[in-house]
């Protein structure tokens, strides 16, 4: 499978994601420069974490105007696989490929820590190597990860199984304490109705090697790669 990792000027998880795809999963991977108009024939576009344009405005608000985003949007519209991680998720929201918006974390501080995620939809292209209710230990690192959308949207998301990951405690309960950033319905990851665009705040690329403390994140990449 050929992956394309987009580089915005302020991306900083681009190499991390590329490393996992290439060296851990042994897949073909290329970098896609935000100023280009060329997706190089990739099968899956990854929007990596970072601070795409410094994010002094809303996170991802300027990145959506990058030249390459035109192609990414068309690619998604054609059913191409797009994975947005952290800042990439924020960009997907700004692009309107996923509904909702991100607010500052509820404690108004940047949070970098391991969290527990519960897989609430294992039937997506991004999660088919997981089980329903499986708990994954994957780190987050963000300031604006407090997911928000109006009640009707939330209802809609739930009805269509679009909430893929939720922040839970070790036992799998979506408690208030486990919902460290204050997200609506403890949402940590969302998929579009069509099932080809996934955004998630936690960083699976940081949890893909035992040495780094967890390899739960690998399941997401493996789900994509699985024929």
């Amino acid at each position: 499978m050929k992956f394309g990792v987009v580089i915005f000027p302020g991306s900083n998880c681009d190499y991390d994601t590329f490393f996992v795809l290439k060296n851990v999963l042994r897949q073909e991977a290329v970098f896609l420069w935000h100023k280009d108009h060329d997706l190089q024939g990739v099968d899956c576009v990854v929007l990596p974490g970072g601070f795409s344009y410094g994010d002094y405005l809303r996170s991802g608000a300027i990145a959506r105007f990058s030249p390459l985003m035109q192609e990414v949007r068309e690619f998604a519209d054609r059913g191409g696989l797009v994975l947005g991680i952290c800042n990439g998720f924020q960009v997907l929201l700004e692009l309107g490929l996923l509904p909702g918006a991100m607010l500052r974390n509820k404690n108004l501080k940047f949070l970098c820590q391991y969290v527990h995620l519960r897989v609430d939809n294992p039937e997506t292209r991004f999660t088919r190597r997981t089980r329903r209710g499986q708990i994954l230990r994957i780190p987050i690192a963000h300031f604006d990860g407090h997911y928000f959308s109006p009640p009707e949207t939330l209802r809609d998301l739930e009805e269509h199984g679009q909430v893929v990951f939720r922040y839970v405690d070790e036992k799998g309960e979506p408690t208030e304490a486990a919902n460290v950033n204050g997200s609506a319905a403890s949402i940590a990851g969302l998929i579009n109705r069509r099932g080809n665009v996934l955004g998630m705040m936690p960083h699976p690329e940081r949890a893909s090697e035992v040495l780094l403390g967890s390899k739960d994140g690998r399941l997401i990449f493996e789900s994509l790669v699985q024929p």
Partner: protein
Amino acid sequence: MIDRKLLADHNLTLEEYERIVSLVGREPNITELGIFSLMWSEHCSYKSSKAFLKKLPTKGKYVIQGPGENAGIIDIGGGLAVVFKIESHNHPSFIEPFQGAATGIGGILRDIFTMGARPIALLDSLRFGPLDNPRNRAIMDGVVAGISSYGNSIGVPTVGGEVYFDDCYSKNPLVNVFCLGLVEKDKIFYAKAEGVGNPVLYVGSKTGRDGIHGATMASAEFGKETEQKRPNVQVGDPFKEKLLLEACLEVMDKGLIVGIQDMGAAGLTCSTAEMPAKSGTGISINLDLVPQREEGMTPYEIMLSESQERMLLVAKKENVTEVQKIFAKWDLDAVDIGEVTAGRNLRVSFRGETVVDVPVDAVVNLCPVYRRPSRKPAYLRTFQQLDLPPLAGDLGAALLKVIASPTLADKEWVFRQYDHMVQTNTALLPGADAAVLRVKGQKRALAMTLDGNALYCYLDPRIGGAIAVAEACRNLACVGARPIGVTNCLNFGNPEKPEIMWQFKKIIEGMAEACRTFEIPVTGGNVSFYNDTEGLSIRPTPVLGIVGLIDDVDRLVGPGFKKEDDAVVLLGENSEGLGASEYLRAIYGLERGRPPGIDLEREKSVQEVCIQAIARGLVRSAHDLSEGGLAVCAAEACILDRTEIGCALDLEDKIRPDALLFGEAQSRILLSASETSLPKLLELAAEKGVPAKVIGWTGGKELVIRQDGQEIVRLPVQRLFEAWKNALPGTLSIR
């Protein structure tokens, strides 16, 4: 035109001024005076410290670059080298905590990538006043947020460091930032201005009026008017720096430039003077070409501005277009503002007139060097004396209190604000004895730590200096790393006070002796004098940044117990003595006595046993005994791993029970090992002549400590955990 008041405003003495006149051959104009005042400031010239810093060993087999460049460089084999340095940003962080700390990060990052290295780790040593004072809480909050905002955005993980609290930092917090980068050995760059006729390129942010006289500010005591110095502090833009980092590394990777220097303290002045001074050339620039953020800036302001995120490059003539193309790709300008000249002067023109024409050597190398008078301080006599108070009642309660003291309590509140995992090399999370980063594609890993106990240094500077080095090395030993290089940030009061100079001299002596024993070169660092506010000096605070190498990252161990029924082994010996301990401070409010002594040879053997035991896979955890002594170390071993395993210790030492629990005798490490590995571990220790004793076993959910069969501590691990975990957030949430 130049009178005594103007000299005083520029922190120059009359003698220094006369020297400038004779070096330049005439009276300097105001811009030239500004240039000398910056470059001859303590911060830039090291005029009071130079003579003493020479005592530190700087040579070693693997040293590629010692002191004198932007950062030190050590060969780590496999074609790679590490570039690392520590810097202080104390004064700016007091005036404007968020921006002061943020630009400190920006500055240290530039020091590293200026040399061609990609920064892979940040650590910081922070010292604040007690948190019951709201002002101190605000400073801490701002500093941590500032570091977080800059480091997280640019994508360099903050992987460790330390936070200490002491009243002496109330009006003079310390913010020391350390950065380490990785570079291919044949792609290292220096601050060179070679090749007469080569163009001088200005890259990065535009120049504004911010930070004028930052370096001079850092070289003076603070008075009550400090609040008015706010415009002296610069504002950071991490996104711009990220662009600058990528663009600079790209032109360096392609070999398009000759030399490069960041514009940090002293801005354009420093880079245009230092680069030619190192290369035996001169530089001529035209200020009209310098990108400016504000209108009507004078040459004085342009030359002295400390606007952030700027660099000066010297490119090969034929490569200028290519360099500019790469900068344009990253949405940055690279403006040709002048050239390298044969004359050994810095010449600056502005609107058709020459406004500066001074010999670069005079500016950079001929600042007077001072051997300032020193005198043993009178306080030592009083404060080294210690009449131990009678033993307090419940030692378990004391342990709960000590482990919840701000200096020892959990720092998660701090480090979870830092992205400590980006770049995916972080093999040990913050809170361990040392930070550990894997090197992608290699078996080896890098370890690094910051350390320095100011109270020890205050009460016995020589021993304090030696312990700072020993303790930092011990941190590394606990993750199985052998030290390879040292950088240091020496934070002191006003060096014009003989007592401060005496502290400085003695601490350097202690550090030098320890570095020689451990055979580790000092490759650079930073001296921060004038940490005085309203006449009060901080305690002498050397912060040691030591880098180490681990041969096999798969053998890595952490500080916490891993399994039940493992033997708990103490390397080294307990001894009587509670002087300068955290226990005395936390329980009795006493900051006195003599710090523990140290036998450096013994220390080295203890560390060697630990390093070898880890390398041979004989131990499952290793944790250093430091502040809080054996009891705190054992408690931490119970709570630092997610498994939270208790232990029962049986001690036989015939010493005061509180000294046994909380004394800070040096050269001790607490290990845990399986029963099968135990004989080999004890044999290894015996071979090296290191006392090693099984003092207990892991297991259960309690920490139990007995002395001569009598129980002196019994506490649930959960209670220790909660006391340790909740202390800092609890204190910080007071509004």
